[in-house]
Each structure stands twice: as structure tokens, then as C-alpha cells.
């Protein structure tokens, strides 16, 4: 590059020294913001996990007293027993924390932020201040959701789905007072955070790609982040509105979701309490909520799919099989994702004719996901697999996603859904796609990009120990749910032993709980590895994985501005095993050998 270019860069890039607060706390640097999201996400992961352990403890041993905790939380007149509304709170907050404070922030906030500018060759995001705001808008949510555990009545307990009238009407449950209000406020804040982030990502990806980085030379990670951001931007406003409507119902006495119990008969009544006459519809909430929350589940998997694609290509040393079909599949999943929300409402009392329509769209959404799985298999076929920790987690993603995706077909089928709706079949399915897929994807991404984020490597052996045990125990917890689900064991039950038809599967519940406790403890291995490696991990160098994408050409960790010289892109990201190179990889920024013709792409 000419000296004039250097001078140009020097003047536009301000070199003033930033104080500690501006550099690491209120930072506008996408990498720091990404790492902030990652740290809060990991902390919340442990909170969400503890809540899940509470659920499993009760379910595994429904009549026992919890050692130590029982005496401490429910002393005296409560008789050391978990009250049923506490159990409802546990699973409601477990889901809320995991979805809104862990998976979405980790996938979109942490990895979206960190990878996007680096992988497209930009200096930072398009709107750095908006980016900072996007992170700090998570904090009101942390504050309100954590505070909600301590208010009178406890944290929200109407499920993460918060259906009216249970959530809406204050006296319908102890937790539907301040607990529910704080939940609503927290989620509105998270919505703002995500909407700000999504606008940033879309703009950055469209406008700030390095020279030569055409759309179809972007890595799958970026495609995934891009499409996810579009999902967020389109779907979140609907959720935010729904949350505001429910909040209005609970504060100023509107009745968006509050019905009359019979025509001309006044509102709903529970004991002595009665709501004033309504005229609203509980079903309206469900439509608004699921209009967002169905795309939300794709928000929670698409980034992982993208990252896993990159990780598999890197460690299989082979191009992604069917790059364009993979991109189109992502778009197909996202697009179809907008017209299937009613599959959460098949039995809801919505007109069943709508159910037929939603059913067909839902079954078709299995198609792009299947195409992706076949393409991942195609990538592995004929490859050279290096079993590093990130690769193992990515392979787990693929194999577990197959299970999660296939089990989804059962519930897409409306008549079968009549039997399995609100049973453990659903819980098993959702944990396979969220825990076994998204979380394995997140682990893969953390192990993979840790060296670039912090300049050090995480310990690979302990990473593998963590992987093996997580893989075994998570299957132990969630696979039997397909069996209890086939038995039609309803979900969200504090005490399933009330029912004779569930007697024989109670043993499975206990087995799953034991596996869950082990699974929880195993995550400590990850935590120690992560924390230790931050300070004492061996140095990773520039490109420890010998990967092709742009971020590996920046220093580890990259400085403010990312690239010392702006990168120029000459090819796609998956030129592994290319005959053009003597190594088994060929970075995107490496200039082509003079005189060499570009390798013809075998299709």
C-alpha cells in the first residue's frame, strides 16, 4: 500500500488514549462488546442451569425434601417443601433466562459482534455507539429479571410463554404481580437491545465489506448472522408490542387480552377476586407472541448453523459442500419461519382450519434444514477430519440437530400434535435443538474463536473431557424425554406421581435428573478451563487453526480498527485442499500466484 494510504488511515483513525472505563466498560469496539455479551451470557448460562437443576430435582424426587436448600428457602411453616408455584417459577425463569439472556445474546450479541467486522474485513460496526447501547440495554433486563426473584410473590411463573389470563391477571398466580411486570419490562429492554444490534449488523454487512468480498464470498457465519439479523428486525417489534400491551393490561387496566367469561357476564373470577368486564382475547397474545417466538427459535439456531459450517470446513480441511444451497437454505428457513407460528397454537382454540395451513408450512420447513444436514455430511465425505474440541462440538451439533429436527416433524403433524402437545415430547425436541444444537454450537464457537479473542488457547484435553461428558450426560437427560413424551407425560407438572398412567416412567424422570446434576457439574470444567486460559493459556498466534477466513489475518487479539492494512479478498472462504495452494488451505486474502489460473470449482 502507498504511504498516502497509510497517512489517510492515520488521520481518520484517532489514536487518543482511552481510559479503562471507555476501553473496557463503555466500549464502542465491537470486539469488546462481543466479549461483554459473552461474559454475561456465560454467567447467565450458569443461572439458567441452576434453575433447571431445581426443576429436575423436584421432578426426579417429587416428595423428598431438598437437602439444605429445602430448610433454607422454606423454613418454618412452609415445612421445608417446595411450593408448586415455586416450581412453575423455576421452569419459567429457566426458559426465559436461557432464551433471552443466554442463547440469543451469545449467538447474536457475542459472536455476531465479534465475527462480523472481522470476517468481512471492516474496521468496526457501522454504528459503534448504537452497538454499545445494544449491550447496555441488556443490563436493565439483568436488573429486572434478577430483582424479580426477590419481589413479593416471586419471579414470573406463567411459563416463558406468559399466556393470559394466567400472566395477565394479577390474582391468577402469586407471581403474576410484580414478578410478571418485571419480566415484561426486562424483555422489552432485551428487545430494544436486539433490534439495535440487528440494524447494526444488516448495515455493516451490506455496506462495509472489504474490497473483493462479494456477498457470495462471505463465510456462512456471516450469512447466518445477516439473515438472523433480518429475522430479529422483522419479528421483534411484534413481541415488543405484545409485551407493552400485556404491561398495559397489568398496570392501567386495559383489557387487550382479558375476556368476558361469558357474553355480558363480566370478567374472569378466581375465588373472591374478579376482573372487570373485558372484551379482549387471550388468543391475541398467543398470535403476537408466537409471531416473534417462532422466528426466535430460528434466531437461536441459524447463527450456530453458520458457525458450525465454518468450523467443520476448517477442521475437515474441505470446502463446504453446496455453498449456495446452504445460503438459500438459511434464507428458506428464515422465510418459512415467518409463516409457521400457528403450529404452537394447534390446540389453542384457534380455528382448526388455520391449523391445516400452518401444518403444511411447518412440515415444509424441515426441508431446508434437511438440505443443510446433507450438505454437512457432504462436507465430511472425503475429508480429512482433525478432531479438535471445536470440531467435536460442531459434529455434535450436526448429529444432535438431526434428532431435534426429526422429532419436530411429529409435532408439525396436527393430529399427532393433539396427543403430544404440551408433553415431554415437545420438551425433548426443544432441548435437542436448543441445548444439544445451539449450545454445542456455542461451545464450538467459544473454543474456536477464543484464540482470536484473547490471544491464548483453551486447553484442548480438558475441552475434550468437557465435551465427552457433556455429550453423554445431555443425551442422558434429553433423549428419554422422547420416551416419556411418547407416554404422553404432560409438561410443567410439579408432581407427576398424581397420575397412574405415569407410574412406570417416573423412574426415567429420576434417571434424567441424575444425568442433569452430572451435566451441571461438568460445566464447571468448562468454566475453569475458560477462566484459567484467559490468563495462563498458551499463546495461540495468528492462525492456530490454519483457517481461511479474514479474522485470522488480524492480530490475536485484534487492536482497535482490526486490520493493520485493510484486507483485499480474492476468493471464497472455503478453499481448503485447493490445488492452487501447496498448503491444505488458502486464505481469502492471499493474493493469487502470478500467472496461475483460478482453480475451477468442481460442482
Amino acid at each position, binding site marked *: 500500500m502507498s504511504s498516502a494510504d497509510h497517512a489517510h488511515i492515520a488521520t481518520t483513525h484517532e489514536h487518543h488514549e482511552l481510559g479503562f472505563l471507555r476501553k473496557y466498560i463503555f466500549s464502542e469496539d465491537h470486539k469488546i462488546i462481543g466479549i461483554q455479551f459473552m461474559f454475561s451470557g456465560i454467567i447467565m448460562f450458569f443461572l439458567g442451569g441452576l434453575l433447571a437443576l431445581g426443576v429436575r430435582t423436584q421432578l426426579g424426587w417429587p416428595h423428598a425434601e431438598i437437602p439444605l436448600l429445602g430448610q433454607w428457602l422454606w423454613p418454618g411453616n*412452609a415445612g421445608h417443601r417446595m411450593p408448586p408455584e415455586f416450581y412453575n417459577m423455576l421452569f419459567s425463569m429457566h426458559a426465559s433466562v436461557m432464551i433471552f439472556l443466554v442463547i440469543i445474546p451469545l449467538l447474536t450479541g457475542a459472536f455476531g459482534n465479534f465475527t462480523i467486522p472481522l470476517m468481512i474485513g471492516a474496521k468496526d460496526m457501522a454504528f459503534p455507539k448504537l452497538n454499545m447501547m445494544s449491550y447496555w440495554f441488556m443490563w436493565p433486563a439483568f436488573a429486572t429479571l434478577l430483582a424479580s426473584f426477590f419481589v413479593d410473590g416471586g419471579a414470573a411463573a406463567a411459563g416463558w410463554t406468559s399466556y393470559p389470563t394466567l400472566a395477565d391477571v394479577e390474582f391468577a*398466580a402469586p407471581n403474576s*404481580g410484580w414478578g410478571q411486570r418485571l419480566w415484561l419490562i426486562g424483555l422489552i429492554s432485551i428487545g430494544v437491545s436486539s433490534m439495535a444490534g440487528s440494524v447494526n449488523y444488516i448495515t455493516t454487512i451490506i455496506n462495509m465489506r472489504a474490497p473483493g468480498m462479494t456477498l457470495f464470498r462471505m463465510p456462512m457465519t456471516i450469512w447466518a448472522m445477516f439473515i438472523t439479523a433480518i429475522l430479529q428486525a422483522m419479528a421483534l417489534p411484534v413481541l415488543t408490542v405484545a409485551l407493552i400491551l400485556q404491561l398495559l393490561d397489568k398496570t392501567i387496566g386495559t383489557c387487550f387480552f382479558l375476556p368476558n367469561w361469558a357474553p355480558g357476564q363480566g370478567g374472569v373470577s378466581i375465588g373472591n*377476586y374478579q376482573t372487570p368486564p373485558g372484551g379482549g382475547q387471550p388468543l391475541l397474545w398467543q398470535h403476537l407472541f408466537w409471531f416473534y417466538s417462532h422466528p426466535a427459535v430460528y434466531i437461536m439456531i441459524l447463527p450456530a448453523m453458520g458457525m458450525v459450517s465454518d468450523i467443520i470446513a476448517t477442521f475437515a480441511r474441505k470446502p463446504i459442500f453446496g455453498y449456495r444451497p446452504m445460503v438459500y437454505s438459511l434464507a428458506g428457513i428464515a422465510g418459512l419461519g415467518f409463516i409457521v407460528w400457528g403450529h404452537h397454537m394447534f390446540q389453542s382454540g384457534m380455528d382448526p382450519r388455520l391449523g391445516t395451513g400452518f401444518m403444511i408450512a411447518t412440515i415444509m420447513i424441515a426441508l431446508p434444514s434437511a438440505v443443510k444436514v446433507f450438505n454437512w455430511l457432504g462436507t465430511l465425505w472425503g475429508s480429512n477430519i482433525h478432531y479438535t474440541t471445536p470440531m467435536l462440538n460442531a459434529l455434535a451439533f450436526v448429529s444432535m440437530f438431526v434428532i431435534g429436527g426429526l422429532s419436530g416433524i411429529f409435532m408439525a403433524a396436527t393430529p399427532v400434535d393433539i396427543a403430544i402437545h404440551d408433553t415431554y415430547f415437545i420438551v425433548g425436541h426443544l432441548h435437542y435443538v436448543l441445548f444439544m444444537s445451539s449450545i454445542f454450537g456455542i461451545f464450538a464457537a467459544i473454543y474456536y474463536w477464543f484464540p482470536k479473542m484473547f490471544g491464548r488457547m483453551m486447553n484442548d484435553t480438558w475441552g475434550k*473431557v468437557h465435551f465427552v461428558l457433556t455429550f453423554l450426560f445431555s443425551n442422558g437427560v434429553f433423549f428419554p424425554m422422547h420416551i416419556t413424551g411418547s407416554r404422553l407425560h404432560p409438561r410443567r407438572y410439579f*408432581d407427576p406421581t398424581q397420575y397412574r398412567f405415569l407410574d412406570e416412567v417416573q423412574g426415567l424422570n429420576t434417571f434424567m435428573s441424575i444425568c442433569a446434576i452430572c451435566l451441571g457439574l461438568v460445566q464447571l470444567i468448562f468454566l475453569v478451563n475458560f477462566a484459567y486460559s484467559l490468563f495462563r493459556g498458551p499463546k495461540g498466534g495468528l492462525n492456530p487453526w490454519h483457517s481461511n477466513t479474514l479474522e485470522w489475518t488480524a492480530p490475536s487479539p485484534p487492536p482497535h480498527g482490526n486490520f493493520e492494512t485493510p484486507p483485499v479478498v480474492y476468493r471464497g472462504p472455503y478453499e481448503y485442499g485447493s490445488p492452487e495452494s501447496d498448503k491444505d488451505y488458502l486464505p481469502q486474502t492471499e493474493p493469487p500466484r502470478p500467472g496461475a489460473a483460478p482453480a475451477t470449482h468442481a460442482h
Partner: protein
Amino acid sequence: MMAGLTKKTAVRAGAAFPLVLLGLLTLPGCGDSYPKDLNYPPRTDPIVIELPKVQPTYLDAPGQLAHWIDSIPEKGGRLIDPTAGVEKVQLAKVEEHLSKSRFDLSDEEVHELGLASKPEKDSAQEALEARRDSLKKRIETITATMKGVAPKLSAVLKDRFGTPAAPKVGVDDADAFGLDTTTLAEGSKLYRRHCLHCHGLTGDGRGPTGPWVNPHPRDYRQGQFKFTSTTMSAGGFTSGSRKARREDLLRTLKQGIEGTSMPSFALLDEQNELRPLISYVIHLSMRGQVELSVLNDILGREGDPDADVEELADKKLKAIWNAGWKPSFSAAHAIEVGTVPSYTGKTLGQLSPDEKVQLDESIKRGFQQFTTGTASCRSCHNDFGRANDYRYDEWGTISRPANLTAGLYRGGRRPLDLYYRIHSGINGAGMTAFSGALRPEDIWDIVNFLEAMPYKNMLPPDVKAQVYGKGKD
């Protein structure tokens, strides 16, 4: 640390620890009874001894039960608080008035501060100082008394009534009435599983869920039961008096209480589950009432702080048993319903045309009784129950005369249940017993009217017009 790890060690360590864990999980604590070392906690919530004169105009908000009871003195009622909490709060308020020299007291403040009457402006300071001194003295007395009494009371209650895991009833003939230790232990397990989180460990209705549902779960410790079928006189919590019979408690368990949070437990086995539960509830009620009466005697206005706790407890227990529970078990005190008219208790389809006419007449008579007759039900059940005021019940919580046009009866919807309610009233909730004032045939007339009232077309036209009126249809 990390460097010295070999793959083999890592894998072995990784495999070993879940096995260790499995071992840990076989530790005790997985049973379904209360822990053996758990004792019934002593009573710390106040006893309501006098209700406010002014009736409430609103329900207590969800979760505010304790606060509601604590604020009864402010509204003109009286409490006995074994922890002197109420007095301490009042003392703080009095001292605030004194330190800020706020001597111009409103009526509300007079109640709040527990003054007997509104003092003249110039004697207000003196009155407040006197009140402060008397409160301080009272707090001292309560604290000192309870210091001596509390351990003795706990000991005697534990001796006579056992622990949650091993309950018993310390009367000689307990076994004969299903209050043997085996039945009670079984009942305790079932109670813990099905009832604890609402009705609380001691049966005080203040389990974790209790304050959040309205009406609140029954506080058994007062020894008063609403839906009874005995002829015994009602009595308050200090006397033995009318209790629920086993049949009444069974009905409640089986049918639940519609319009409240008490669900139906009909699907539990009657012999092996409901029966022990009933025994356990009776045990909790007896224990609670003994504790309550002893505290009331010792800490009450005419109380004797130096009374022998054990002797007093035994005396109370004897009274509650011999004058309350034991007679309730006997069929001798069951309500008799007199001659039941032939047109009562039949479906419309079963009535002959003559009987239909007779039924109409009976309904008209019942309507008469309801509105202008001796019963004068309308004086409480305004507009046939559609426009009722809230009132305090003897637990200090809120009740309301039933809306009789709704067809929703908490004590049961059978004609027999309605007969019982009118005959013996609803103990603790202000529904008077009419057995003295009305003859059985009068009661049956009212019952027929009540049974017809929710069904507009069953009422004779003139009655219908008066109940549902023009524009009320």
C-alpha cells in the same frame, strides 16, 4: 495444572466423578414424610380477639394477608400478638407523634395509636405519653411472659401432640375416633403432599400459597369450621363448641369448595387417604386451638401471666375434646331435618302436577321468609346476594354473604346442605343459625326458594319479577 494432565487421567477422572455422585444421591432425604427432627413452630402471628366495628370496603390484596391482620387494631379491632409486634409498631407511631409534637389527632390516628377515645388538644400530649408508657409496659410484659411461657408451651404441645412426622393426640380415647398414631402419621404424609403449601405446617392457612388466594385457606387453629351439620351451639375460639363432623370434612374434601381455591380431592381413596387426612386436620385443629386458648388466657386482658402452662393446656385440651370434637363425632348431635315435603328434593321431571303446584307455593313462602319473614335473609343478602358488602369473619379475613342467584354454594348445593346452613348458620362467617327462629318446614320452604332462584323459569312469575325484575332479565 493443565500441563501435567494426561488424556488417560482426564478420562478416568471424568468417568469417576459421576459414580461418586450417584453414590451421594442414595443419601437419605428421599422419603415422603416430614423430617423426624422437624417440630411445629410456635405461633407468632397475632390472635384476633376483637374485630373492627367498621366493615371493610375492599378485599385484601394478593399476598397481603399478614399485613391485613396486623392492621386490625388500626381499624378499631384488637389483637393479641405473642411477639408483641403489633404493640411495637404502635409504640413507634406514638413516639413519632410525640417527637414531632403532632397532637392534633384524626379519628383514624386515634385507632392507629390504640387510644380509647379522642383526647382534647391540650391533654393530647399527656394521653400519648400515657399510651406510650402503657405500650412499653405491655411489650415488657408480653416479652417477659413469653420468655417463660414459650418453651413450656412448646414442650407441652410437643408432648400432647407430637411432631409433624409423628403426630398424636393426647387424649385417652383418641384411638377410638381415628386419631391413633398410625392414621395420623399417614395423614401427615398426605397432608404434606396435598395440603401443606396452602394450609401451612401448623394448619394456619399461611402456607406459601395461602396469602395469595382469596378467600384464604382455612386456619384450623381457631377450631371453627364453617360448614357443619351438628346441633351444637357455635361458640368462638375460646370454647370447645361446634366442630365439623367427619362427614362434613369428607364432603369438603370430595366436592371441593366451588368459588374458592379449595379443589376437589374426590379421586383420593376414601378409606386409605381421605380418612387419615381428616384425622390429621382434626389433630392440627386441636393442637392449634389449645395453643391459641392458652396464649389468649395468659396474654389476654384478664390474663394470668403466672398460670401453670401445662395445667392450663391440659384443661383446654379436655374442654376442646369433651365439649367440641367428641360430641361432634357422635350421631346424637347430627342435625335432624324434620319431615321432608314430598315435592322437595325431586327433579322437575319427577314432579307430579300437584307437586308442582305445591312446590310453587313453597317457593312463594320461602320468598316471603327471605324478604319480610322471620328469617329476613335479605337484610344481609342484599338484592338476593347480588349487592353484598364485605364483612370481617372471625379469622379477621373477609367474607361476604353469598350471591344466591348464582347457584354457587361453597358448602354444597344439595338441599340437605342448604338446610344445614340455614339451620346452624356458618360458624365464624356471620351467617346466623336459624334453628331457633324457624320451624323445619319454614327452612324447607326457604331451601326450595333458594334451589329455584338461579333458574329464572322455575320461579313463579311474581317472585321472578321481584328477583329479576324488569330490565334485570
